């Protein structure tokens, strides 16, 4: 056990985590340079393209130092706010963390919150400044930020470049020297934690585990404590570039367990695995049953693709247990599914994967967060769609989820960001200067406000110099109303939204205006109205289309014109007819994105 080191990398998106991981794999000869596909740890196309590690992974490598062979388990962590629970579990499986900071960009919000998670769990932190070879690198300034944050000595900070491989041998040595060996007793009852799982169509769900105490042998009967189910450990082993089966794995090890479970829902990240015969007395702390917080309807463009869509969602759920869905019916859109997501990015990823991996073009309705409604006769209802909200006469109160949001930015943007957060019903709780040029703002605000046009505006008002992170805190009472949108007097349920009463008029006007821009004109006028109950609060009219004809169409114009009309037809194929109005596929998501 003294030669094992378990660690993760904490970094902001694009700060070079995947590239550095690749260099470590190369330097330790875990992977040959020839087989090296850049960023070996990200194995979904989408991840590679977006540069985000959506699902965490783990890999084992060996490193020689002073005549000794060390086993490293590098546990990758997902890099986005929506996946903070998964990050906390990955961190919980380690004794140390490499804190990777981009030399040009400095510390970002997510890095800090993940760093705090690591410090809370007593991880040894090795700070590294990456991309020091970039012309825009500001090593001194970033060094100051890190020293302030960690209280470490500047000489503790390593300099690296994932691109050139600079500093990689030093990092590997530091892992040996500075990260403590795992503690634990192989003779105690088995206590292991699931920190991730992947779905394999032939093997079922593969759970990635960290063993804290005890020993797990192939064929053991194991119990998953939180789900209360028993299985047989059909195969166990280490995670190298491939799965490497072993007859036993024990305290301090990171490895995998295959139990024949076919549904990823049955394997919950953070759950404790123990032996059915001789269970451990304590579970691993920190387990949470993560519930989706953002809901939206997903509908096929053509009704007849409903079953295909169900099929695709089921397949997605196999390796993404945080996705939930259940059938729902919309007057406007027909049959579809109410889907639950961890957050807005998760929603976008699912939508994109449906299109890319399953060739399913879908309509996503206006998203909303999950609310609790209390009826006058004392029932508590989970509200996942605006239609779930009880009638005003039967409604006692509504509670909405609140988050603690951290934003790191440059001081010159504080004013604008403060205004945005106040507009979003946020309350500032704290303001910390990390250095003279970076400030951390802490807010408490309703999660529902993040769903409505928050990320884009934050990005635009800060010109990209703001990083954002959040976690859920609690549910608080709120004055919510259901706002309906009517097209030519027909309510379109897919456009209904739950909004705070104080903002209903404003949002109603904005949404009507936005719809006016988004909906194509027809040969008749289209009235767009927003209403609360029977009261119309906003109205716009799309004038009738009187002509659609090109004046000239000569030799030179034929190709160009044809391409234009073909494009127009393609666009039309992605529209959904609601009543007598054509609604483009993206309308429901774009309707809440305002330009100013």
């Amino acid at each position, binding site marked *: 056990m003294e030669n094992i080191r378990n660690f993760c990398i904490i970094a902001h998106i694009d700060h070079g985590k995947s590239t550095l991981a690749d260099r470590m794999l190369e330097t330790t000869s875990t992977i040959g340079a020839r087989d090296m596909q850049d960023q070996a740890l990200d194995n979904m196309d989408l991840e590679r393209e977006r540069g985000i590690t959506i699902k965490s992974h783990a890999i084992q490598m060996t490193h020689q130092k002073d005549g000794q062979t060390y086993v490293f388990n590098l546990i990758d962590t997902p890099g986005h706010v929506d996946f903070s629970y998964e990050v906390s579990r990955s961190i919980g499986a380690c004794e140390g963390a490499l804190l990777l900071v981009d030399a040009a960009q400095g510390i970002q919000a997510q890095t800090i919150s993940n760093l705090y998670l690591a410090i809370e769990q007593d991880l040894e932190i090795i700070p590294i400044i990456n991309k020091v070879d970039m012309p825009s690198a500001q090593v001194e300034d970033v060094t100051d930020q890190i020293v302030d944050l960690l209280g470490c000595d500047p000489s503790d900070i390593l300099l690296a470049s994932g691109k050139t491989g600079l500093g990689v041998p030093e990092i590997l040595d530091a892992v040996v020297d500075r990260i403590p060996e795992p503690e634990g007793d192989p003779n105690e009852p088995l206590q292991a934690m699931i920190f991730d799982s992947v779905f394999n169509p032939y093997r079922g769900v593969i759970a990635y585990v960290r063993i804290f105490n005890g020993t797990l042998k192939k064929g053991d009967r194991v119990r998953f404590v939180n789900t209360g189910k028993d299985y047989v450990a059909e195969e166990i082993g280490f995670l190298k570039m491939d799965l490497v089966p072993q007859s036993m794995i024990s305290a301090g090890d990171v490895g995998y367990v295959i139990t024949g479970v076919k549904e990823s829902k049955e394997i919950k990240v953070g759950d404790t695995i123990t032996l059915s015969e001789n269970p451990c007395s304590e579970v691993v702390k920190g387990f949470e049953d993560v519930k989706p917080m953002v809901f939206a309807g997903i509908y096929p463009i053509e009704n007849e693709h409903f079953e295909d869509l169900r099929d695709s969602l089921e397949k997605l759920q196999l390796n993404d247990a945080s996705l939930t869905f259940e059938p729902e019916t919309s007057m406007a859109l027909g049959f579809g599914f109410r889907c639950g997501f961890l957050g807005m990015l998760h929603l976008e990823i699912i939508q994109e994967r449906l299109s890319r991996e399953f060739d399913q073009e879908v309509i996503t309705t206006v998203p909303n967060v999950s609310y609790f409604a209390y009826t006058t006769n004392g029932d508590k209802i989970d509200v996942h769609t605006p239609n779930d909200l009880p009638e005003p006469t039967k409604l006692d109160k509504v509670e909405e989820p609140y988050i603690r949001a951290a934003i790191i930015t440059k001081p010159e943007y504080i004013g604008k960001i403060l205004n945005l957060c106040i507009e979003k019903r946020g309350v500032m709780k704290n303001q910390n200067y990390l250095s003279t040029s970076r400030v951390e703002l802490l807010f408490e605000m309703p999660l529902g406000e993040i769903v409505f046009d928050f990320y884009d505006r934050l990005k635009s008002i800060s010109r990209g110099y703001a990083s954002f992170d959040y976690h859920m805190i609690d549910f608080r009472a709120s004055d919510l109303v259901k706002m309906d949108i009517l097209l030519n007097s027909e309510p379109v349920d897919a456009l209904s939204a739950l909004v705070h009463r104080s903002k209903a008029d404003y949002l109603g006007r904005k949404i009507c205006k936005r719809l006016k821009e988004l909906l194509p004109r027809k040969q008749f006028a289209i009235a767009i109205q927003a209403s609360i109950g029977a009261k119309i609060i906003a109205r716009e009219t799309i004038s009738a289309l009187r002509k659609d004809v090109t004046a000239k169409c*000569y030799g030179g114009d*034929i190709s160009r014109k*044809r391409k234009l009309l*073909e494009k127009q037809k393609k666009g039309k194929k992605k529209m959904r007819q609601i009543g007598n109005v054509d609604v483009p596929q993206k309308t429901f998501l774009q309707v809440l994105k305002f330009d100013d």
Partner: protein
Amino acid sequence: MGLYIHIPFCKQACHYCNFHFTTSDRYQEQMVGAIVKELYLQKDYLEGRSLESIYFGGGTPSVLSEKYLADIMEAIYQWFTVEKDAEITLEANPDDLTEEKLRFLKDTGINRLSIGVQSFRAEDLSLMNRAHTREEAILSLDRAFEVGFQDISLDLIYGIPTSTDAHWLENMEMALRFPIHHLSAYALTIEPKTALAHFIRQGKYPPVDEAMATRQFEMLMDFAQAKGWEHYEISNFALAGKIARHNTAYWQGKAYLGIGPSAHSFNIQSRQWNIANNQTYMKEIEKGCVPAEKEFLDVVTRYNEYVMTGLRTKWGCSLGHIRAYGAGFETFFRKEMRAKIQEGLVVENGTTYTLTQKGKHFADKVASDLMMV
């Protein structure tokens, strides 16, 4: 077969125009040299078939000096067979048409003029930044007939923000005071990146009023019908038998060769278009290469083009023609057409489908809906 020659020179830039042209005349000689050379380079494009029509467009071909036009004509006759009764059109601006120029054009073999009058109103002409006046327009027409041109087409533009319906009616009536046989009328279109688009954004001119343009198109169709003119293509009207043969060939899917920068060519299987940059065009031609991009047309594309161009004409789309693309096309076409007939946009006459007067306002939409993508 048709031959198109693009002359990329203009005296001044019309504010609405997004065609390829330059107002500099410094390198006319070099350009004409290149055009002459391209005629040679492309002499086999039409596989030796004779020319039924030649069209000088632009730009403004009437700015070309006599010598240059003669050079080009000579090259055409050297490398191509021109049919005896070929239609040979030249686009001209009124201000270029001196008596001397007209006589020369006639002697060179031009037998049809398309005169860009656009409007007889000073305010409209100024908004569009046309180089001529109302008086010049009238004078040039009179002169052209005097010199002996019989086939004259006149271009008009409607939906101009500075004009009214009454003005438009006056313009149409004024046009028909001349013994013309052909009229092209276009709705003023605000193309992006033109001076006019810029001025409208700045508020110097009011935006184009779609309702007015629609009304004036309706007036135009009624007027033409009342005067016994045939509305044979969305923007083109003719007295019996006087349709523009060259342009009609475009809409009927016949092969043509385009010479000059930005000119397009079509030989049924493919379309190609020369680069829209004068300097590059000339440099490449001098090296003996035709700087063109090419697109091969698959059966779906050919069907889409047929639907698009066919619907714009009085001949419409015929089932026989569509069937030739394959059985699937006919089924698809008939299914999509049903809705258009119900909406009153298309009329079915035996096995041909043509736009109704209402449908002519929505020609693009109907064509787009009928396309296969």
